[in-house]
């Protein structure tokens, strides 16, 4: 038994490469009622790399705007505050989650593929099931497995034992993490997002993405994140150790009004939705 002491874990969480400043500031700004196009543009323009990538993305075939977007302010007006936050957060996250996660058997870039796929699918589920804040759904999908970045080195040390419990297909990987390390990547994701001061409903959805029925703040957001994660794995994006014995909770699908036909239709859109999204974010 190699339980990870809480202090060790917290120290590790604090040492995680932080989101780029621009992403943190834009997130905070959009949550703030005093946000304006000028303020958001000013924040984004402080980071030349993000500015260039944002404009490139907005002008990609994936977004398909009929005319060229030349200024950040135009992008903010056209897409809206929340969608711009999603873009900036995605660009920032892509920077910090590229490294391979050996403990989760994920090659370099695979957590990014998994996260972006889940975000795009979560947004689509929000639209289908009438969840009002589609960008919040996107954000939950994007960040749901972020705890893996911090927990990876500990999982790696106990990989054999964890997989030994999960590998047979009877027990979810996160449950095996919990039993052996005393923490799973959901709880660690919660610590990380609290450390980044993200909204409580979002933190809850991430911390309960494997147990959505326990959510109280925003049960639909948790259900949605869980369903999106499951569909992402069904489609094979970023299959790491978390893809072992993953089971989708039917109650979550019911809560979202997703039946077999809706799910099949949704899955059918995944190659274009996610394939196109991943290509748009390629450098």
């Amino acid at each position, binding site marked *: 038994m190699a339980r990870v002491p809480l202090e060790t874990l917290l120290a590790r969480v604090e040492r995680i490469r932080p989101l780029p400043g621009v992403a943190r500031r834009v997130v905070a700004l959009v949550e703030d009622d005093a946000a304006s196009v000028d303020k958001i543009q000013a924040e984004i323009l402080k980071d030349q790399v993000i500015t260039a990538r944002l404009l490139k993305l907005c002008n990609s075939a994936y977004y398909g705007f009929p005319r060229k977007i030349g200024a950040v302010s135009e992008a903010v007006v056209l897409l809206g505050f929340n969608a711009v936050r999603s873009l900036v957060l995605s660009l920032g996250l892509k920077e910090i989650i590229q490294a391979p996660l050996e403990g989760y058997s994920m090659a370099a870039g695979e957590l990014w593929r998994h996260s972006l796929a889940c975000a795009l699918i979560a947004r689509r589920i929000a639209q289908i099931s009438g969840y009002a804040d589609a960008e919040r759904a996107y954000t939950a999908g994007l960040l749901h497995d972020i705890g893996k970045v911090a927990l990876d080195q500990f999982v790696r040390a106990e990989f054999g034992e964890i997989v030994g419990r999960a*590998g047979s297909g009877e027990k979810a990987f996160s449950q095996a993490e919990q039993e052996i390390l005393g923490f799973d990547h959901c709880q660690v994701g919660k610590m990380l997002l609290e450390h980044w001061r993200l909204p409580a409903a979002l933190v809850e959805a991430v911390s309960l993405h494997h147990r959505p029925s326990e959510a109280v703040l925003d049960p639909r957001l948790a259900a949605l994140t869980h369903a999106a994660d499951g569909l992402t794995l069904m489609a094979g994006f970023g299959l790491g150790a978390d893809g072992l014995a993953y089971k989708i*909770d039917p109650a979550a699908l019911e809560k979202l009004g997703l039946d077999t036909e809706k799910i099949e239709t949704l899955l059918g859109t995944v190659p274009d939705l996610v394939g196109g999204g991943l290509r748009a974010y390629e450098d």
Partner: protein
Amino acid sequence: MRIQLIEVGECAVTRQPDLVLETCLGSCVAVALYDSGAGTAGLLHVLLPRMRSVSMETKVTKFADPGVRILVEKMEEAGARRDRMSARLAGGASLLEAAGGFDLFQIGTRNAETAREMLGGLSIPVVSAETGGHVGRVLRFHVGTGRVTVRVIGQKERDL
């Protein structure tokens, strides 16, 4: 050895002997076709069993029907012969608890069944398969030798 990732819904046919085709499977099913005489390899990544409506579809190879037929046609165009082709299948995991109203919702199983039916209809034998269960799999197809391997996380890569 060069690895080429085959994305969900894609269909690839190649004769480049140094190439390894790789694909990641949840409930999806990979159909790996090989004609050793021509050295032609084809890989299809099936997401859903059948196309429901024709009009809107951009990528019909994501469906077992008609994807398998398209794969075989592409193989033939590349010089392979149907009577020499053999198939290997992997994937088709189930990620849904058999509970509530979702008993019938077995996309993985139906993907594998439909792929088998399609292959049967074209008289192509399935020489090996590893489908079902609750685990994701990574399949690799070595074009030069026709060798196909499957790996479940935490387990050794096995020949299929």
